[in-house]
């Protein structure tokens, strides 16, 4: 076993989290969310992006009682809170963006009023620029 120690002091990178799957059918949405929360603890920059069926992850009104699974949609509220904190607190120098792709929204007949967190709605071309400028992409 080779434990490796990374030199991460003062490192500030931009992580992009690309959410493309609907919640509950698979575990991907939940496990990406866990990674987002950890990256906040490391005070990294983050783009949390919802495209394709990923937009359904933050849809308001999820009720999982009858499928007996945990409703993890309230947890997205933490992302919103982290973003607000990052915006207010200059010391931590952390930029967080919560982004939904316009094309995916339109294709599904949704508007930003359908979401339980406040989001930036951007076009595919605008998102392409943001993703291209990031250091690590984690998708699910």
């Amino acid at each position: 076993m080779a434990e490796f120690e990374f030199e991460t002091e003062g490192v500030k990178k931009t992580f992009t989290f690309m959410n493309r799957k609907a919640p509950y059918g698979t575990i991907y949405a939940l496990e990406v969310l866990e990674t987002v929360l950890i990256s906040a603890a490391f005070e990294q920059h983050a783009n949390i992006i919802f495209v394709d069926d990923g937009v359904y992850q933050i849809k308001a009104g999820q009720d999982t009682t009858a499928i007996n699974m945990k409703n993890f949609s309230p947890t997205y509220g933490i992302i919103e809170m982290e973003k607000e904190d990052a915006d207010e607190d200059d010391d931590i120098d952390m930029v967080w963006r919560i982004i939904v792709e316009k094309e995916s929204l339109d294709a599904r007949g949704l508007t930003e009023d359908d979401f339980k967190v406040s989001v930036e709605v951007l076009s595919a071309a605008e998102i392409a620029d943001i993703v291209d400028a990031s250091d690590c992409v984690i998708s699910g």
Partner: protein
Amino acid sequence: MPAYTVNGTDYEHDEEGYILDVNNWNEDLAKVIAQEEGLNMTEEHWLVVNFLREYYNEYQIAPAVRVLVKAVKKKFGEEKGSNKYLYELFPYGPAKQACKVAGLPKPTGCV
């Protein structure tokens, strides 16, 4: 399965003392768990425990230690918003020990 007994009712817990059903929590149970942990629950302990309950009820997850520290600072002032202060209250770690008393699931120790 081992259990805490409070006012004649049994509350099952895992090997490490975390209760199995988050919804069963009540203050009397918290006092018993705290006692097992060797904690003397002061008003300051309750502030943290109640904060954890509220946070969990809203977000369905226990906060990361950094979030807890920040939130305590925001709510109760600068001198309480530190790792050191929280460790004084909960010597075995604010995440693990305070979550146990608050009846939350065991933190997975991700950070």
